[in-house]
């Protein structure tokens, strides 16, 4: 059953997708070894607790595996889709009871004492939040509400009492600016 996947290999995205759809275990090992750390980084920008993030990562990987059939390559690359699953799962987790309990009782966790404020997570830290803080105020708010808190543009428009078009234009401009800050 694992004939095709002997030894360390490198797959093209198409090959990997095909093997994942056939539910090859070795394809998951490959997926894990190539993407788990990046997805973990994505989760940690939202959940600044390594142990909890590891639980979410596991949930995300199972979800990726289960939902492989619903992934449509025409709409974008595999990583774009996985990033979305990881971000959604992390945001869902911040809305859950477990996160609230953890946040309240986290004073003894060694992770937290090592964590600077603002969601950074140590070595190789996702500094997305600190880049966001370099944006101007109204841009920060939009990126924070949409990317980190998961509100839709329509929800943000309602909350900030702005027309949807304005929210879209501003959020887009904010993302471009953020991309420039990050790339520099």
């Amino acid at each position, binding site marked *: 059953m694992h004939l095709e996947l002997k030894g360390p290999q490198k797959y093209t995205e198409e090959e990997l997708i095909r093997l994942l759809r056939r*539910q090859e*275990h070795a394809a*998951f090992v490959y997926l*894990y070894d190539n993407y*788990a*750390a*990046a997805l*973990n*980084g*994505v989760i940690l*920008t939202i959940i600044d607790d*390594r142990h909890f993030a*590891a639980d979410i990562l*596991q949930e995300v*990987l*199972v979800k990726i*595996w*289960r939902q492989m059939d619903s992934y449509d390559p025409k*709409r*974008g*690359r595999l*990583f*774009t889709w996985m*990033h*979305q699953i990881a971000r*959604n799962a992390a945001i869902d987790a*911040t*809305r859950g009871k477990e*996160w*609230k*309990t953890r*946040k309240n009782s*986290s*004073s003894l966790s060694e992770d*937290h004492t090592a964590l600077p*404020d*603002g969601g950074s*997570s140590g070595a*190789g*830290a*996702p500094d*997305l939040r600190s880049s966001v*803080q370099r944006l101007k105020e109204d841009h*920060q*708010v939009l990126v*924070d*509400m949409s990317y980190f808190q998961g509100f839709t*543009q*329509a*929800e943000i428009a*309602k*909350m900030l009492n702005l027309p949807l078009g304005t929210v879209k234009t501003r*959020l*887009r*401009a904010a*993302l*471009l600016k953020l*991309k420039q800050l*990050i*790339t520099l």
Partner: protein
Amino acid sequence: MTIQEYIQSGAIESCVLGLADEADMAELQRLKLAHSEVAAAFEAAESWLEQYAGAHAVPVSAEIRAKMLDTLRGNIENATGIGVTYKRSRFYRYLAAASLVLIVLGAGMSWYYHRKYTEVAQDYSIVSSARVIKISLPGVAGKENDLATVYWDTLSKDVYLRADRLPKAPAGRQYQLWALVDGKPVDAGVLEGCEGLCRLKTVAKAQAFAITLEKAGGSVTPTLSEMCVLGKVAS
């Protein structure tokens, strides 16, 4: 909007990051097919995201890796039916048990989503109600990154707070909201493990709101050196 303007608007980035709505996504799909420049810009944005995430990857310990791959293997084997060699009658018993599990799961999920939905719906009805005024509390000098928003129901006098950006309170301390009434601070409650909108004490009258970091349980008077945000009520 020209194609070049579209590419330079950030619309593509909002789609790649998953922040766009269905209309934005449909527009992108349409333009991708019609214009190769849009397709190329989309691919570039996707590569950028993947590279950024790769550069900011946080490795997972070998122990966790082994555990996760084990779990995934379990999932795969269950679904592909490896090791299922039961006799027919037994198979049906398992099927019945599995159906029961699904029914219970389904009921649990609908309850969960219903709760979640009502929670969110309640949040929105508060922030969008016309009688509710919104007071933005920006960070004070030295705490410029902090931000909170008070939603004050002018009729019921209920006060809700959204901690947009407040660092986690250190152990043994809590954030406390104060209403400034005719120059005097009045306790409006401490922030206690809530996400989204937190309901605090009712406030009948106030010219401004502020948040300070206090000892757990809150203080009688605010520690002014520990003030992080402050916002005036528009008169």
